[in-house]
């Protein structure tokens, strides 16, 4: 499959922050791939390192960040070894980002037409007229009405949802290979959020851009992602396709996350919650960082970090529960429900596959 081509390979990334209190180990050995045209969602709590990961890809980490190891390969080049100038040429051209807050990510003193045309003028060396014409096209593409008049408006003349459309237009105007969306809809109302997400999906099919989508909202992940990586305390603890993560999760942290979000059908007196708080990354725990909050923790969890265990070709989870020597654990009830659903889904898929196979054979006959 040509779609499986990797556009970005992150390997063993380690990022530390030097602070007055000591060295914060924000990213502790993170590896993942991003494939052409896919959406990879990174989920996790604040402080789990999802934003630092993407900032490292963009070369936007603050000055006290230290790269302690690893590589980020993009087009056979390591982005971590690029100079600031070289990164300037990539950022906004090959890799672009949509930020969380549409109120602060636009320049309030610059007309939006200029803000959208700027990446074209800088990166493509385009003449002003041509760049503005293309900016106008982009505005129409992201659904801004009366684009001809509004191109001369300032950001404050737009609503939050419209501003986020402008931010998307700026990010996509150069048709980047990679788009990083860091909580792009968190500041928006649900109805506007739905519109923006639909727009992103629509534009992705048109431009075949790969998206890294960062969010803590699992509902949004379910709708947007092809694959999901779950982060906790500076590490990826589980990754797989969206169906594998939502219907067949293996890591207790993923269980906890899925359960603590009420769905429309959740009732009962108590919501399953994850007790405690994430660990302090100034001094990360020796074993599995989640062990202290995990009621399924084994003795080994406090001593040794679990490696990734393979669940399927696309699905891996770092928990000792998957070790063949581990005792059998029954996941929470809601997770079992999800797994039953998964079994049904995969059966359907197999049946479908069989049907197709039979049809093909019949055709050949």
């Amino acid at each position: 499959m040509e779609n499986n081509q990797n556009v970005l390979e992150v390997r063993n990334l380690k990022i530390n922050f030097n602070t007055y209190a000591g060295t914060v180990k924000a990213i502790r050995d993170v590896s993942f791939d991003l494939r052409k045209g896919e959406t990879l969602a990174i989920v996790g709590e604040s402080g789990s390192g999802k934003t630092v990961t993407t900032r490292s890809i963009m070369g936007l980490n603050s000055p006290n960040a230290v790269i302690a190891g690893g590589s980020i390969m993009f087009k056979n080049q390591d982005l971590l070894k690029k100079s600031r100038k070289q990164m300037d040429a990539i950022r906004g051209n090959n890799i672009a980002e949509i930020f969380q807050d549409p109120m602060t990510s636009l320049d309030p003193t610059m007309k939006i037409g200029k803000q959208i045309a700027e990446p074209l003028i800088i990166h493509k060396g385009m003449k002003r007229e041509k760049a503005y014409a293309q900016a106008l096209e982009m505005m129409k593409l992201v659904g801004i009405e009366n684009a001809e008049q509004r191109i001369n408006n300032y950001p404050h003349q737009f609503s939050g949802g419209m501003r986020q459309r402008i931010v998307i237009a700026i990010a996509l105007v150069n048709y980047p290979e990679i788009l990083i969306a860091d909580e792009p809809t968190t500041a928006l109302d649900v109805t506007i959020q739905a519109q923006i997400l639909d727009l992103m999906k629509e534009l992705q099919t048109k431009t075949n851009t790969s998206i890294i989508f960062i969010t803590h909202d699992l509902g949004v992940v379910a709708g947007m992602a092809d694959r999901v990586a779950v982060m906790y305390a500076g590490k990826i603890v589980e990754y797989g396709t969206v169906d594998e993560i939502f219907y067949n999760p293996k890591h207790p942290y993923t269980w906890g996350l899925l359960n603590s979000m009420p769905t429309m059908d959740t009732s009962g007196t108590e919501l399953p919650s994850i007790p405690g708080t994430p660990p302090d990354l100034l001094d990360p725990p020796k074993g599995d960082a989640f062990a202290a909050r995990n009621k399924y923790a084994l003795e080994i969890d406090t001593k040794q970090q679990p490696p990734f265990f393979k669940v399927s070709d696309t699905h891996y989870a770092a928990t000792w529960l998957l070790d063949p020597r581990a005792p059998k654990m029954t996941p929470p009830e809601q997770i079992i429900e999800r797994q039953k659903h998964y079994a049904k889904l995969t059966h359907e898929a197999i049946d479908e596959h069989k049907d197709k196979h039979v049809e093909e054979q019949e055709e050949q006959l």
Partner: protein
Amino acid sequence: MIDYSDENKVLQVEHLKQYFNMGKPNEVRAVDDISFDVYRGETFGLVGESGSGKTTVGRAIIHLYEPTSGKIIFDGDDVSKLKTKQQKQHFRREMQMIFQDPYASLNPRMKVKDIVAEGIDINHLAKDDADRTNQVEELLETVGLNKDHSSRYPHEFSGGQRQRIGIARALAVQPQFIIADEPISALDVSIQAQVVNLLKKLQRDRNLTYLFIAHDLSMVKYISDRIGVMHYGRMLEIASSDEIYAHPLHDYTASLLSAVPVPDPEYERARVQIPYDASQEFDGKSRQLVEITPHHWVRASEDEIPMYQKRAQEKSRLKQ
């Protein structure tokens, strides 16, 4: 079960209007003729998009604003007609508020024990210093903090812990009514569930009444007994939370619910968002909340009532 009889009403909001910049060109009708009741022991959820006026309603109820017109009756007394100092102090003891941002709502220069005890001091609820310390430590334990935390400052706590301090402060004066304005939206998912569980437990133990203001619809559904949906400063629909999610009657409610992302990839792949045309609210007809089916109110004009009744019948038939 909550007693929905007239005697059990603890809060009555009658035709509340809250306008800002009255008479000026930039007049804002933040709340425009809203009426609803809250019963003792229940959680009333107020949902709506930003700018719908839900926060303004909460602030008007706790009398941070003087209403433009209309009445807010709490425990039998009109909130804006409280005259004596005692009456006002009593009202402020009975009604407390939990705020959205746990970072902005605690004074960074005060120790936790002084933050929590401020209400105790003002209302002279402690006999002596030892009693005060006792009460504070008890409150901290009630909300799941350690009594050793009492001599620390807010910056030493995480967001979830700070929100617990805010809850302890609200509980310190033994209120019966708490307005919680987006109390969990600044917290992480795993911490949100902890705080919601705490709020529910406190409600059971102390028979509290909550006005829960939020935009996260799935959390509101979970915590609320009844829900009011606001849009453009108006209340469009009120019903029990199960009813409003299962059979939304107003187009806006249906549209809002259809936009909620659900952590289920299959559901998401099949999701169709229902668009909403707000112009139907501005056709000049006079509208009021009408009880379409028992305890299910929808803002409708006279000629729309049969349409909503038919809709309600169809929806309940679909269920069977």
